[in-house]
């Protein structure tokens, strides 16, 4: 009796229990269909072969329900059919667009209160108007026309990828053809306007990357950009020489010294020497040149959009969902569009990197700007700043802390992308790493991975130090003192070049070790690492094998089967129910909409498999992460150490541990899940540490004074208070896990990830890739929405933040 009373005190818990009961009841109601859905795709196959109906009539459905059996449409959502949405780009439809836009704008102008400043104040109307106009003209009107007068062909939701593809292909190859003279084939050629535009953009970007690259390792592309290949042909001497690695190493040393002091200079310098000595010089400089362009572009774009979002809530509101999607969408899903629109090469890698690295910068810029106290802004205004001065001299510098965090994120993301970017043409460490893995040379791959992490850390530290440097206004410097570092660098350059010149006579094997150490002539620790990996595999193989078998047979397969045997109505009930309990009807609808999108595609079964792997990965990661985080936070040194480990693993290319994991666990879900757990434990640990560290000390003191021992304190005070923050960590864990489950397709999975990889070679690669990417993103966003809403409410209740 008492127990029920206490339940009544907690209506949410009661609701949740009720929800679970309903959920499990629904799970039991699959009846005859059960055997069809436990194996992925067989339900769809049965429908396609006419074995079963995709849906039954209303009365029949009622009858089935009465007998405790769900009708088929509640088990798997049938294909949604609607009339052909043939997007039309004819002149008629463009006219309709213009007319609708003009009409709507006129109307909203007429009904506006402040006519004078209408344009500046109501530009959101302009935006929505143009969107409506575009929809009406390009989609709705043609569709209506087709329906009324044309041959109405049925299309389904499943064909959206094809439509996307056709639209993109039309844009890239057919729309607005312009005649371009191609001297190579001595003829005029039709080329689409968009293609020419994106290609000239690509050329400029590539020029920048190659400029930086050739300063570092030499080359002819920059010379060609200003002359031509023919000119180069006639002037064989024209070659931009590389900076000898000794010069770059001393240069980084000097830079580090100038910006921060001896510690940083030693670290940066030694890293450079490490890279050179281990023969990774050229690939490392290739990667670096890409990052040196992609990172600033991301930072500038991020700041720009962050500032715009800060100035206008409308932009913020439009931008936020886009950022959410960009951050949760797997990279592989936008590789094909990038290749189609921008071509293949370093620039494509840079663009993919920028897409991935900009969102956190935008978020952190916005966050930083929002935290600037209004009085500081007023102070700036009262000091007579115009809007530009206010932005650059007051707002941006004041928001610096968060923006620097953003820069840190950008650098980390840029290097984390280096492997994936090599799929679409980025040269450098990432490509070599893939190559090494394909030869199963894990030791070499490890060395490359270490290079990537080191470059990330050095760039991060240097950029931080640069942002922190202080000016001296009163010292009266003479010429030497003022330009000390430039002079020193000039000296180093001279010395290094001289050394390189001497080196060209010195070495016997035709390789000048003072100039460039070639890829395979450096030192290597490969045998050491290889031996380590071999040792692990040899000594652990059998015990892990039996563990693996037990895990797969007793946990993973039943779990996967359970997920697949969920009728669609049960999944919706569960997710929307949790959404409702946490955030009311609004959350339920949002979560439901995300799920509906996935359910309408033909990949629902695959999405369920993705969800199963994410669930398992998240559960284990959270347990490990919170445990490790809680233990480490008891000690300051351990805390710092664990945070360092988190940083390292976040940049360390996850591809590397895929291979040893396969060797230990085979091409199984276990391998994928191990990789997932390694990666997803990072945020779980980090947020636990942060959550526990940031508890107000007064509360801990209060706990101490009431005589709680350490464990009691942890359970009764620290955990409840840190819990909202830890939940945000779990949120991140889900996103990280999703990300890695998709990468897990490299091992071999049968979930959404496999199809995303497949999209790389599909006829409908763009459409399929994007739709699949959205499916993954929406799983992430549904969970994200629930957890974020909960954490926000909980934090409010607890009065934190």
């Amino acid at each position, binding site marked *: 009796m008492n127990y029920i009373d206490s339940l009544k005190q907690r209506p949410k818990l009661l609701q949740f229990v009720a929800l679970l009961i309903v959920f499990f009841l629904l799970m039991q109601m699959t009846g005859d269909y059960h055997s069809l859905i436990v194996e992925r795709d067989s339900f769809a196959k049965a429908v396609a072969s006419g074995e079963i109906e995709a849906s039954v009539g209303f009365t029949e459905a009622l009858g089935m329900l009465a007998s405790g059996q769900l009708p088929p449409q509640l088990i798997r959502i049938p294909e949604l059919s609607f009339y052909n949405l043939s997007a039309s780009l004819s002149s008629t439809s463009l006219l309709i667009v213009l007319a609708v836009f003009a009409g709507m704008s006129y109307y909203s102008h007429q009904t506006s*209160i*402040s006519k004078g400043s209408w344009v500046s104040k109501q530009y959101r109307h302009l935006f929505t108007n143009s969107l409506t106009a575009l929809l009406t003209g390009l989609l709705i009107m043609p569709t209506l026309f087709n329906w009324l007068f044309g041959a109405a062909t049925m299309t389904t939701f499943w064909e959206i990828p094809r439509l996307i593809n056709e639209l993109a292909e039309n844009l890239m190859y057919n729309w607005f053809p312009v005649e371009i003279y191609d001297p190579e084939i001595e003829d005029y050629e039709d080329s689409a306007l968009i293609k020419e535009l994106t290609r000239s953009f690509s050329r400029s970007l590539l020029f920048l990357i190659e400029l930086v690259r050739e300063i570092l390792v030499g080359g002819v592309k920059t010379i060609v950009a200003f002359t031509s290949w023919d000119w180069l042909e006639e002037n064989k001497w024209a070659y931009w020489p590389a900076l000898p690695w000794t010069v770059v190493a001393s240069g980084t040393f000097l830079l580090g010294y100038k910006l921060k002091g001896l510690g940083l200079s030693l670290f940066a310098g030694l890293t450079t020497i490490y890279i050179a000595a281990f023969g990774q010089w050229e690939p490392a400089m290739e990667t670096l040149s890409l990052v040196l362009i992609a990172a600033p572009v991301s930072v500038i774009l991020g700041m720009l959009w962050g500032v715009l979002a800060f100035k206008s809530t409308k932009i913020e509101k439009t931008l936020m969902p886009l950022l959410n999607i960009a951050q949760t969408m797997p990279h592989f899903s936008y590789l094909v569009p990038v290749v189609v629109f921008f071509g293949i090469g370093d620039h494509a890698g840079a663009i993919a990197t920028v897409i991935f690295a900009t969102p956190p910068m935008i978020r952190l810029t916005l966050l930083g700007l929002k935290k600037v*106290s209004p*009085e*500081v802004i*007023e*102070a700036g*205004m*009262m*000091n*007579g*700043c*115009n809007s530009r*001065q206010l932005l650059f*001299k*007051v707002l941006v*510098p*004041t928001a*610096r802390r968060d923006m620097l965090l953003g820069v840190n994120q950008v650098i980390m993301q840029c290097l984390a992308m280096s492997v994936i970017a090599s799929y679409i043409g980025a040269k450098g460490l990432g490509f070599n790493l893939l190559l090494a893995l394909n030869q199963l040379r894990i030791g070499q791959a490890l060395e490359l991975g270490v290079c990537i992490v080191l470059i990330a850390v050095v760039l991060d530290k240097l950029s931080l130090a640069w942002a922190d440097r*202080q*000016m001296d*206004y*009163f010292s009266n410097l003479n010429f030497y003192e003022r330009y000390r570092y430039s002079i020193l660098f000039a000296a180093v350059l001279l010395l290094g070049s001289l050394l390189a010149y001497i080196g060209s006579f010195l070495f016997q094997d035709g390789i000048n070790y003072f100039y460039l150490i070639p890829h395979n002539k450096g030192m290597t620790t490969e045998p050491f690492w290889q031996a380590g990996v071999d040792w692990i595999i040899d000594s652990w193989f059998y015990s892990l094998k039996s563990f693996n078998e037990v895990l797969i047979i007793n946990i993973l397969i039943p779990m996967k089967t359970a997920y697949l045997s969920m009728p669609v109505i049960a999944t919706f009930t569960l997710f929307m129910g949790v959404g409702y309990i946490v955030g009311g009807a609004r959350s339920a609808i949002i979560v439901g909409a995300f799920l509906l999108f996935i359910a309408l595609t033909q990949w629902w079964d695959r999405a369920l498999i993705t969800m199963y792997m994410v669930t398992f990965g998240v559960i284990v990661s959270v347990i490990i992460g919170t445990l490790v985080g809680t233990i480490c936070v008891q000690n300051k040194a351990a805390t710092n150490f664990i945070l360092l480990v988190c940083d390292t693993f976040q940049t360390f290319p996850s591809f590397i541990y895929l291979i040893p994991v396969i060797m230990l666990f085979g091409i199984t879900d276990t391998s994928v899940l191990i990789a997932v757990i390694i990666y997803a434990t990072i945020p779980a640990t980090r947020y636990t540490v942060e959550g526990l560290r940031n508890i107000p000390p007064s509360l801990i003191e209060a706990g101490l004074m009431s005589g709680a021992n350490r464990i009691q304190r942890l359970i009764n005070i620290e955990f409840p208070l840190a819990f909202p923050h830890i939940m945000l960590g779990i949120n991140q864990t889900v996103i990280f896990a999703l990300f890695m489950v998709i990468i897990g397709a490299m091992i071999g999975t049968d979930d959404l990830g496999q199809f995303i990889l497949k999209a790389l070679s599909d006829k409908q690669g763009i459409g399929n890739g994007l739709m699949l990417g959205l499916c993954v993103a929406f799983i992430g966003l549904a969970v994200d929405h629930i957890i974020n809403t909960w954490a926000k409410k909980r934090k409010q209740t607890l009065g934190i933040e």
Partner: protein
Amino acid sequence: MSTTQQPVIKCSSLYKIFGDNTQQVIQKNDGKIDVTELREAGCVVGVNDASFEVYEGEMLVVMGLSGSGKSTLLRCISRLTDTTAGEIFINGDNILEMSAKELIELRRNKMGMVFQSFALLPHKTVLENISFPLQIKGHSTKDAMQRAMDMIKLVDLTGRENYYPRQLSGGQQQRVGIARSLAVEPDIWFLDEPFSALDPLIRKEMQDEFLRLQAALHKTILFVTHDFDEALRLADRIAIMKDGVIEQIDTPANIVLNPATEYVRKFTADVPREKVLKIESVMEEIGNLTEADLSDFQVPCDAIIETVAEKVLSESKPVAVVDQQNNIVGVLNCHTVIHMLFGENQVANA
């Protein structure tokens, strides 16, 4: 303070209403502002029909509790927020009609402002913070730094030029804020609760410092505070605000002696008058008294009562009150002082 002189700041019928539908409600009323109706429509009235003038070298203290609209009023006059209705003149120019460019010029040359939370730029050193407005104005770095060094000397922060704000105490930070606001030598000085965030002792010290500076600089000042004692201590005139309305605007003495409304009376009730009032506000007509009837001791008419009370009470005869030219302008009776010191009730009970 002669009224013939042109006021430096002049506001007339100033309104500031917050709320998304403000304009709609006003438009519906053909541009007339009906405060009650606006409140019913869910708008918040920040400033309600404020009119006043501030003259050169005068310090007007706007006093009110939080939410009374005093800071809003200040921000309207500095045009940090838009005004809903009314007019504001600075040196005769209507600033509400100024273009953004003119406004920036005005701020760069004529105005300085000090903020409650100091509002220093965290990424700049003391020196850079103080020279900031000068650099914004376009001074050369050398010039700006030189001038900033002078300001640092003025506010007594020598030796801390290269500190960052986070390395300074609250009082020191506000000195930087003051120095920054004075760097461009403004005519008009806005201070928005400059000392509220400081500890009582430091606050007292800063007030003294502020009076010292004002004695030397003679700026025209609009000073906002929620601390009535501070207002009494500093002000030439005080404007007391409640719910956006200026309840009374007068000299400290008049406010204490003749509170205009019940609200003001509540404020003044506990004010120790001897600490506020000057002798001239309580002295009596000299009447038919002669030199012989008066004691030899004389008091200046602008002295605060408290400072002379003991001496006056020890005299057996009434004390003569003299002006700056040493003319006798009135007399101070013993019982008046007792009355001031102990109040009516206490005297009656005794």
